[in-house]
């Protein structure tokens, strides 16, 4: 289990947990980031990530990514 910030590009991961209970987390939920969901990293730029989740692409910053714990 690793934070999303350490994920490899292109590999599929499962979300184990999203830390925190704030607005940002709810926003992520609304966008499809929930426990058990399959995601992968499309690209990374200065720590910010573009994530493929369900059929959409969501850009998140590295602080946010650090709160998403994923595993294989």
């Amino acid at each position: 289990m690793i934070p999303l910030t350490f994920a490899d590009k292109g590999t599929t991961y499962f979300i184990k947990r999203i830390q925190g209970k704030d607005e940002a987390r709810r926003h992520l939920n609304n966008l499809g980031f929930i426990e058990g969901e399959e995601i992968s990293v499309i690209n990374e730029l200065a720590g910010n990530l573009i994530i493929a989740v369900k059929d959409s692409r969501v850009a998140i910053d590295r602080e946010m990514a650090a709160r998403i714990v994923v595993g294989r």
Partner: protein
Amino acid sequence: MIRIALVGNPNSGKTTLFNALTGSNQFVGNWPGVTVEKKEGTYRSDKNVGITDLPGIYSLSPYTLEEVVARNYLINENPDAVLNIVDGTNLERNLYLTTQLAELGLPMVVAVNMMDVVAKQGDKIDTKRLAAELGCPVVEISALKGTGIEKAVAEAVQAVKKKVKMVSPHSFSGCVEHAIAHIEEAVLHDMPDEKQRWYAVKLFERDKKVQEALKIDKSVLEHIESDIKACEKELDDDAESIITNERYTYIASIIGGCYKKKNVGKLSTTDKIDRVVTNRWLALPIFALVMWLVYYVAMVTIGTAATDWTNDNLFGDGYHLFGIGGSAYEAAAEEYGDTAEILGAAEAGEKTYVTIDDETMEVSDPIEITDDMVAEAKAMEEKYGEEGPDPADYGVWVPGIPALIEKGLDAVECADWLKGLVLDGIVAGVGAVLGFVPQMLVLFLFLAFLESCGYMARIAFILDRIFRRFGLSGKSFIPMLVGVGCGVPGIMACRTIESERDRRMTIMTTTFIPCGAKVPFIALVSGAIFGGSAWVATSAYFIGIGAIICSGIILKKTKMFSGDPAPFVMELPAYHWPTVGNVLRSMWERGWSFIKKAGTIILLSTIFVWFFSFFGWTEGGFGMLEEDQLDSSILAKLGSAIAWIFAPLGWGNWQATVASITGLVAKENIVGTMGILYGGEETWTNMSQAFNHLSGMSFLIFNLLCAPCFAAMGAIKREMNSGKWTAFAITYQCVAAYIVGLIVYQLGMAFTGSFGIGTVFGAAALVFVVYMLFRKDKYRI
């Protein structure tokens, strides 16, 4: 009248659908009290069907403004049906909202949009199966192509007529349903059956707004609370998460049977483009290239060419239709050459003559007059007459608007003063602005294209980390980019910034970037005071960017704006070619309001300036003044009363003061006002005498940074939604403009050897700014 509510995710094509369904029968306003857009219209094919476009939302939670506005409409305004638009290329995530809408009890129809893209990707959606699973009609549509949209509305109308009561087929797990049943019993038994479910689920999630709205007794709340807690214990998760997860689980369970993807796990075209465009080495260069391209084409090439043509021809003397007769006239004019100037000077006994460039008003070096030249000049005068060749004699000549109007006024024997008002005031002022319309249109076209194709979102992502250093986020850049065209849409673009702090800060600084209206002013300063140096124009943009960056740094360290940077979470829509129609329409919408502004605000202000500068007190009493008596005008008196404020900045004369003030109405006015007050053709000469390089720079800087035009100030007020904040923003801008102007002038003068009391102030101001920039940020962890 049947009212249908259009609901769906952002980027699902809702706006396109709304436009397709209502055509031009739409009314756009704001939801009362908030800056969220409200769109209502009537269905093109049936005037009895009204369509309300609700803001794009991802869920019906009570956390964002858009969500609350949307759900309040759905619960309180009782639309007859809900048309849920769903992005077919993103079905799973979109259905998350659908499951919530289904619980409202309103007749619902699901329209799966972008079916054309789905087909192209080779994916298949089993709409029959989906309809069965969701418990409501499902229609395939492509809002872009216009297919299926009539059917969607027809189904909705049918549902209303048949008085269908929507019941969500989805059940949550045991203990949740148990708690929901309790809640319905305890609190909601008065409500119609089909409405209860949504409220019950919300109460289970501890939705504060619903609790308030239903005015639930504290004891009852506690009672429900125990049920919820029991459930949370059993499922080992918090109530909201339980609901969220179960919704997605439900969707996942039905999606397998309804949605067959062709290319599972492979990179889409969008992904491939993003791999390049957001690549760590290529991202910024590509971005810089795109920016340069937009600026170059809109401002430098096409834009300027079109503006020049408009200013010189349409609003100038006139033009040859399709160029017929143009070359013949030009040959004649060249032969005629400087005849008028030569003869004029010779007759006055001068040995040399000068020419004045029509456009730049530049005065040439004196040219010696030889006898040969005089003789030839006389011959030319014989050939072409005293006034020289008349373009109207060659080919097909269309007189410019001012010429036509002048003819008209002469024909009805209009009084001189009124002629002056119409031609020198109205036509000159408004015409100058309208001359920029072509440039603006090109810029708006580019910006519309960038927005629609999806690249704008990527820009925010690319610049985010850089902007964070200055206390802003990547999303702050888009308003600035849009602001290069016009500050008003730029300020409105700040809506996409979620963090209120960041949004307020961006609104405040967006207008530092020179907008289209400031361009003629920059050109004026550059030409009249700096001899046409190209550096002035470039520096204007850098000054703007610098002001934004410094403002970000300074403000982030103040209590008001401090705080953790807002998290950056943004959906990136798939790239797609925007439809020509949409782009053109967007361009035209913005261009048209630009034109309308010219016909209203600028019109009124040119009349105002004209009147108050051509009337005043002379020896003869009160009356109309000659061009060289303007110092006695009402405007001069008013201006002089305030002009001293700007003396420390080097330009404490009434003309510059008045010009700056008229600039508040519209930045284009600065040029127009200076033109009237500094004597038309002599403007440049007079200005170069009134300003030196430093005061000219400070004058430029002040007007670049100070409060924007009224229209922009209005936009600031609307987006800030608070008079207090608006006042703060405007004050900040004016103070910043003053301080920078002060520093530049005073320290510049000190550098060149003139010390004075002003130098002390200038130095103090500089120390203050440096301190604000570099002091320790006590709010950063």
